């Protein structure tokens, strides 16, 4: 393979990226071989661009250009800065697992408190025994980069019948500027488990960094699980996250994704309903301003009969920002009695704001109820006038209507504390606007 010709926008040879990272990457010789193979995939494909159908609206070659070299492992100063950020973003009562610049930080985490209820290891510790951690159901260039370069992550295992007494919050903190943090985590949730898993992405003073995260979640039968992801990275950061979720039978899974930061972001979620009688609720909010680009791409795969899926997605787009929602519902030939619905709405706050909604249904069974809807529009002038006539200044009237707009998605979060936390993020975003 002639790697010498593969160059990034800055002229840096792509192969240097792996060569320079190799010394920091954990894993047995098998793992290193798997990483090398993944890296070769990335070298061959390059970053996704608009002529690749799945990435049509998010051309990473144009938006990002290149994958930055890995961030150095955090030193004492970085950990101190990270601690501040963790304090600011921690959810009350949650047990924290903190990754700083892609490396697990035990001193900032609640490993001991968690140990009584769940099995925990770092990815670094786990890779030697399980090279399979680098494999995922599907692969594109960004997932390949993740497999090649993942420095750390959390490997969590919640045994059958466990009811977690507190949510687990995985906090990704960036302290290193102009560098990549590449993480991969796995969460195995057993039968009958009740659990809430939160993932937060935040910055601690870092700028222009890149996050590439992958998370692999399996949920067993008869479980009741909430999975919340809150991405509030720095205004000039890049966040690419891939989620792979499989759901067992008679399980309730409630997913919520919020994007309120990063210059360029893509969340791609691949959720497979693999057991009958399950209910999946996937909801999300994108809050975008300036020239931010936020892409939420969800694939819900009904592989078996008798499952329900609901998706409610809201995008609020100001200035020259660009929101992308791609939602695909697949109903396999056997998946009769599937009930799948998806509704996406975009609110455009400026003439230059842009929204792309791409709902897709791929239905191979004949006895199903599936539907989707998509709208895009501005704030309703008659509602704005009503609020102003009652004494609300323009920006406050807008804020109230925007909160109501995103509220329908946020309301789907069942836990009061979490819901209030998310409403707080939206309120702060709105305050920054006015």
């Amino acid at each position, binding site marked *: 393979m002639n790697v010498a010709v593969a160059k990034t926008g800055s002229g840096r040879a792509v192969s240097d990226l792996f060569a320079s990272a190799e010394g920091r990457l954990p894993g047995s010789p098998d793992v290193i071989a798997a990483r090398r193979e993944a890296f070769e995939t990335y070298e061959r494909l390059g970053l996704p661009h608009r002529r690749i159908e799945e990435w049509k609206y998010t051309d990473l070659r144009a938006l990002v250009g290149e994958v930055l070299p890995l961030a150095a492992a955090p030193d004492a100063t970085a950990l101190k800065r990270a601690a501040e950020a963790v304090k600011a973003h921690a959810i009350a009562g949650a047990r924290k697992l903190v990754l700083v610049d892609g490396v697990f930080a035990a001193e900032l985490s609640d490993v001991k408190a968690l140990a009584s209820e769940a099995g925990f290891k770092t990815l670094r510790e786990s890779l030697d025994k399980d090279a399979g951690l680098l494999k995922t159901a599907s692969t594109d260039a960004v997932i390949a980069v993740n497999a090649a370069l993942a420095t750390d992550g959390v490997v969590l295992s919640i045994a059958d019948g466990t009811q977690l007494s507190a949510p687990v919050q995985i906090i990704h903190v960036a302290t290193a500027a102009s560098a990549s943090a590449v993480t991969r985590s796995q969460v195995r949730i057993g039968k009958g488990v009740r659990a809430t898993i939160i993932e937060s992405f935040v910055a601690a003073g870092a700028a222009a960094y890149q996050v590439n995260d992958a998370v692999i979640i399996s949920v067993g039968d008869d479980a009741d699980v909430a999975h919340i992801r809150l991405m509030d990275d720095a205004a000039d950061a890049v966040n690419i996250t891939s989620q792979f979720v499989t759901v067992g039978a008679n399980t309730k899974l409630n997913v919520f994704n919020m994007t309120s930061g990063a210059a360029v972001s893509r969340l791609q979620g691949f959720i497979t309903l693999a057991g009958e009688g399950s209910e999946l609720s996937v909801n999300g909010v994108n809050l975008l301003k300036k020239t931010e680009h936020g892409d939420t791409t969800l694939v819900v795969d009904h592989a078996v009969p008798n499952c329900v899926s609901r998706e409610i997605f809201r995008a609020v787009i100001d200035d020259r920002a660009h929101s992308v929602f791609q939602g695909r519902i697949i109903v396999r030939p056997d998946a009769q009695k599937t009930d799948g619905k998806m509704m996406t709405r975009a609110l455009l706050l400026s003439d230059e704001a842009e929204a792309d909604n791409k709902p897709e249904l791929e239905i191979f069974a004949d006895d199903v109820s599936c539907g989707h809807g998509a709208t895009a529009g501005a704030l309703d002038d008659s*509602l704005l*006038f009503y609020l102003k*006539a009652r*004494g*609300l*200044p323009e920006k*406050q009237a807008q804020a109230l209507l925007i909160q*109501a707009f995103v509220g*329908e998605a946020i309301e789907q979060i069942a836990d009061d504390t979490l819901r209030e936390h998310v409403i707080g993020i939206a309120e702060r975003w709105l305050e920054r606007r006015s």
Partner: protein
Amino acid sequence: MMALLEVKDLKVRVEEREILHGLTLTVNEGEVHAIMGPNGSGKSTLSHVIAGKPGYEVTDGQILFRGEDLLEMEPDERAAKGVFLAFQYPVEIPGVTTMNFLRTALNAQRKARGESELMVPDFLKKVREVSKSLNIPQDMLKRGVNVGFSGGEKKRNEVLQMALFEPSLCILDEMDSGLDIDALRIAADGVNALRSPGRAMVVITHYQRLLNYIVPDVVHVMSRGRVVKSGGKELALELEASGYAQFEDAA
């Protein structure tokens, strides 16, 4: 004594078409004025321009509120000064509970006037009192503003706001439209309870019926963008008998 509201020779256009052709109206504190007139005479336009609705171009004339130029103020500033428009068609705002809306609006007005925010218990007490007198169930206040409300409930919600915000000028735009006689009576009782020496009302209506419940001090007849006749409450009865045709000819 300075008038509360003075509309002087007001000319208003909507999309190049002149709707008000030089309207003059003076309302003093404590007075209830009725403005009657046929459809298209400009009654609602007048109410919208006083409240500051966008889309109207004032080409001439003035609107003074306690001597201040109302046309220079944003709608929210007018509200904070004490101008209240009860909408003919109150909008539905899904996702904003009535309670949250009431508190946000009241505190925004207080803030604009340099007053402190009303404490939550005081606010709740006040809302409870007023909503009880208007026969508004508490669970209605937890729902989105006007979402799923009947016509009567929407109008009562307007009166509730009037009672809470304590404006000095209330403009009731066709409050009777879409209401049956019972709903009209409840809403009108609510309005009458708010009559006070410090507060004026302008009741805009097509029909005399509403004025049986809210008895005005002064009745104005509008036709083709002007006030063509003013008189006492007996003018409303006269109109009921003879109709608007005579004034349309006069205009």
